[in-house]
């Protein structure tokens, strides 16, 4: 909460002004019944036209003043809350950009997006309301009671009973109601999940004739939700008439007691009228409490979630002495007894991995899901750091390079080919600042996607990404390969990024890549791809099972033979 509130510091003067304006409005609201009482006593009862006109004009003038204050308050409150929200968003984004990969993986994407949207908005909304109505309601209760005591202390005694009673009643309803609402939310989630599953699996459900089974399941969840919602709403909505009744009873009391006192001559008509008015305003304010507390608790939860992000302070950083970072010229890579365990995990994903690739060589990595292929890849651009062992590039330890220099020399094509919203040119030029259109076309030609792009309606200006045209998996893969190629990297890494290409296209693509002066690592499931590499690394459960050329492996590795057989048929393995 503290860090979040520190974002309010630059807005201190605005907050002070906003509060002053709000207090001004409040004072006027509290004065109005007081003046009405005065006017009745001194004007109406004494038939004094001048007094009436005086108090009446004062009231109307004050109303206009309060309006002016209210409008100014809108500007200050809005400026503060939006400025605050924008600052938080900006800082949070910057902060996330500096996250190390290990930190980032702790938060699912949707969770981070929610923080930027709902959570920030929740706090922003609460701050806006805090500068306007939220603090006003409690102050109105206190001020109303004080004014009532000023007008007539004896009559005002009733407030000492009703205000604490109603306030604690509202708080109790709220506490119970919140718990009930949480339960409702769980049932809502269940209904939605069942629905989602049914939509996604409809073909299977129909195929297995499980419609009735599913309907029974859904109806159970539906019934639970309807019942729970019903009792929750009934509970919450019952509180309003009760509150209303207690407040109205106090009016009856004021009249009765006011009458007794007026007989005794200690109370005037105007005072009774004023106190009736205060009672109405105070109870209106109390009924606002529900809304205030709900907003506050939501904002608090949101603030805590945002807080979590700011609390993370493990950034990626360069080692101390990277100022004289060596330059990568060859792109030889060697792993020396590298082991790696993910920060949150217990089991290592890579055990004692050693290999060397020379300049311009190609290494293919194959292995089962979870064998550690992608983990191995992530160590090279230092998305993660090794747990033990060393990685060398051009005979220098990986950590001696600045992150910037290291990554500038790597062309990385991830497993899921994500394109950003924008044109195709923008996406490819993304790989290299100030790339010329010729360079872009050169890269797309090599990635075997130029012709496809030329056939799109807007060619290179076609919009892709979230709101863009639908490209096939293979097309996306080739664009993201072009994005890596345009950097002319010393080290090119393809993480199963040719899986959606047909054999002929893939073959042309790999041939084109051979013209680049780079060391290449390629993760693949296809033997036909692996065969093109100088060496094949067979990874199993984080260990290097074999490392050799295709021909050698065919002779020596049993697992490799099995894999080849499964993809090409046994008889063909030996027939040729």
């Amino acid at each position, binding site marked *: 909460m503290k860090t979040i509130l520190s974002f309010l510091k630059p807005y201190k003067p605005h907050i002070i002004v906003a509060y002053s304006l709000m207090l001004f409005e409040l004072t006027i609201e509290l004065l*109005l019944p007081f003046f009405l009482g005065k006017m009745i006593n001194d004007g*109406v009862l004494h038939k004094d036209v001048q007094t009436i006109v005086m108090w*009446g004009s004062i009231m109307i003038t004050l*109303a206009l003043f309060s309006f002016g204050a209210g409008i100014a308050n809108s500007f200050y409150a809005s400026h503060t809350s939006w400025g605050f929200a*924008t600052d938080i968003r900006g800082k949070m984004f910057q902060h996330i950009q500096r996250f190390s990969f290990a930190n980032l993986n702790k938060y699912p994407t949707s969770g981070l997006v929610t923080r930027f949207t709902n959570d920030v908005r929740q706090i922003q909304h609460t701050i*806006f309301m805090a500068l306007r109505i939220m603090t006003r309601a409690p102050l109105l209760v206190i001020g109303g009671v004080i004014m009532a005591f000023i007008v007539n202390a004896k009559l005002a005694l009733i407030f000492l009973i009703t205000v604490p009673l109603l306030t604690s009643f509202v708080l109790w309803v709220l506490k119970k109601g919140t718990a009930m609402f949480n339960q409702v939310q769980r049932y809502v989630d269940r209904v939605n999940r069942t629905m989602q599953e049914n939509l*996604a699996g409809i073909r299977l459900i129909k195929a297995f004739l499980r419609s009735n089974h599913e309907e029974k399941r859904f109806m159970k969840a539906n019934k639970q939700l309807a019942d729970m919602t019903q009792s929750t709403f009934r509970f919450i909505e019952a509180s309003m008439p009760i509150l209303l009744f207690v407040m109205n009873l106090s009016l009856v009391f004021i*009249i009765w007691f006011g009458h007794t006192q007026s007989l005794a001559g200690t109370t005037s008509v105007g005072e*009774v009228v004023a106190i009736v008015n205060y009672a109405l305003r105070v109870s209106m304010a109390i009924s606002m409490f529900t809304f205030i507390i709900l907003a506050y608790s939501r904002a608090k939860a949101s603030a805590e979630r945002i807080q979590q992000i700011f609390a993370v302070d493990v950034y990626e950083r360069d080692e101390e002495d990277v100022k004289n970072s060596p330059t990568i010229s060859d792109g030889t890579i060697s792993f020396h007894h590298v082991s790696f365990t993910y920060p949150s995990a217990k089991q290592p994903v890579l055990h004692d991995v050693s290999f060397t690739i020379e300049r311009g060589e190609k290494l293919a990595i194959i292995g089962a899901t979870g064998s550690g292929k992608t983990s191995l890849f992530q160590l090279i651009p230092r998305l993660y750091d090794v747990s033990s062992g060393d990685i060398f590039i051009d005979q220098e330890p990986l950590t001696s390079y600045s992150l910037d220099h290291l990554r500038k020399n790597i062309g990385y094509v991830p497993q899921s080919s994500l394109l950003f919203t924008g044109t195709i040119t923008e996406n490819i030029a993304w790989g290299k600042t100030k790339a010329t259109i010729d360079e872009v076309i050169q890269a797309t030609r090599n990635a075997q996607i130029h012709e496809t792009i030329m056939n799109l309606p807007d060619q290179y200006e076609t919009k892709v990404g979230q709101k863009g045209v639908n490209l096939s998996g293979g097309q996306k893969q080739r664009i993201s390969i072009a994005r890596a190629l345009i950097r002319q990297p010393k080290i090119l890494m393809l993480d199963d990024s040719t899986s959606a290409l047909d054999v002929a296209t893939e073959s042309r693509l790999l041939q084109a890549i051979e013209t680049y002066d780079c060391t290449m690592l390629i993760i693949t499931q296809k033997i036909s791809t692996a065969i093109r590499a100088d060496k094949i690394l067979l990874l199993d459960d984080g260990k290097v099972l074999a490392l050799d050329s295709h021909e050698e492996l065919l002779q020596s590795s049993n697992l490799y033979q099995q894999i080849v057989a499964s993809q090409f048929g046994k008889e063909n393995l030996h027939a*040729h």
Partner: protein
Amino acid sequence: MLIKQLKRPFQHKKVPISHVSKQQRKRAKNTLGTLKRIWSYLAKERFKLTLVILMVVVSSALSLLGPYMIGVAIDDFIVTKKSTGLGILLIWLVFIFFMHSLSIFLQNYWMVGIAQQTVYHLRADLFHQFHRLPISYFDKRQDGDLMSRITNDIDNINNTLNQSVIQIFASILTLFGTFGVMMLLSPLLTFVTMTIIPILVISMRWITKRTGPLYKRQQSHLGELNGYVEETVSGQHIIKTFSQEERVTCEFNEKNDKLYQTGFWALTISGFIPKVMNMLNYISFGMIALVGGLLAIKGMGNVTVGVIVIFTEYARQFTRPLNELSNQFNILLSAVAGAERVFAVMDEEREETDEKNAKELPITTGHIVFDQVSFGYDHTPILKNISFEAKPGESVAFIGHTGAGKTTIINLISRFYNYDTGKISLDGYDIKNIKRSSLRSHMAFVLQDSFLFHGTIRENIRYGRLEATDEEVEKAAMKANAHEFIIQLPDGYDTILDQHGSGISQGQKQLLAIARAFIAEPAILILDEATSNIDTVTELKIQEALKELMKGRTSFMIAHRLTTIQEADQIIVLKNGTIIERGNHEQLFSLRGHYYTLYSEQLREIVG
């Protein structure tokens, strides 16, 4: 410095409000028809609804009576200092207040019940309908769109029924009631109170004319920002490996700033609304006091102190419904639009019912014959004159490029779609004359996306045959090569899978799908790309399991990798909806045609 800072809130750049993309408001097209249908749901609770309306009338009347009685009490007893009758009046007042609260409680109580019943039935009907829709309906649409109907749209209806209905009704009653009573008490003072209405209408129009477009614009900026965050977070590995952190931060700040400018004005201007309402309340308060006071001492227009008190309270009750009505009306409109979308789904044509003379087929040998079958979709022919025969226990594989018609054949066998001409028969019966449920009960499917439900592994396997025992489940898992990995999971067969199947790999999911097919013990087996997207090692296990599963069953399969289908009894090569080659592997290979080209292309890679 401080002055400059304090001036800042008034110096925001003006945001144009006119040039907003014309995003048509989601308005209902057939409001009356939709309302009628909502009514058909509400009508089930007709009795309760009548009670609610009755209670709203009672509570509205009592809410007028209360302040009136207080005014009378002040006039008749406190001003005059009389005492006789005050006790009775106060008891009446307590009774009125009690009845007022009771009527509000009851109307809420019943209305919540009505709303929940209605929403319950709506959800149930919608879900029921989903299961009656033909597969083609789902093939054409995105799950997200359908989801939003059952969540957002129904939620909207729920909220409207819970609150808006009563509020709108009560607001109208209060508005007319207050006006009527005020007129009775003092037409002159009523006129004074009414003078605020033009101000209210004009200022509200001024505000909403600006806030409407501003909020729309804010929404689109916010959407853009969300999209950007989502993209950059999920693409973080690319941003990092390409060292583009600074660039994305810059772009983010640009978008953030745009949102800031619009958001500031939207919030500021909409923040005027309560201020205007307050001002008008205060002004009418002052005017009633001023004019009322003057009238009272002149003895004109029946104005007394009590009347002034009544009017100050009524004036408040009068402005509130005005504001409420304009709010609730918008909510109501969007709920009607939501309801229309829900009903649109319910009106979709259902999967055709079985033919009248369709019969059960309790057992089958799995003998399927396609005789000159053609099928088209939206006037485009997809399959043309397809004929083949799958004898009991035989396996048939389909290969061909995307769009060749492989999946369509499978959709026809299972009658997800109906063929147009020709005949498909099972054991000699036209499948159109067999009940769908009976036909499908003989089939089991293993699809590319091995869909698993939220639940335990055991429940997911048992999905193939609900009455299967635990032993049968484990036996099926063993046959499917899945037992081994299942027992290594911390909770074994009781491991809970969520929809994304966290904790187990794609290949393992596929093994569970095979177990699910095993337990169904079908005569006919349908495998659609069951082995694509799976790593090579797990694939070995899957192939083994599939081979076991196919034993003694008629099976139809589609696969990318030619090795998977090499052992099929028949291989059918499709191109543009026609069969261009057929035979077993050896026959097709020696044919040196299409199949040979495909096959040797893959083979050449291996030999180099």
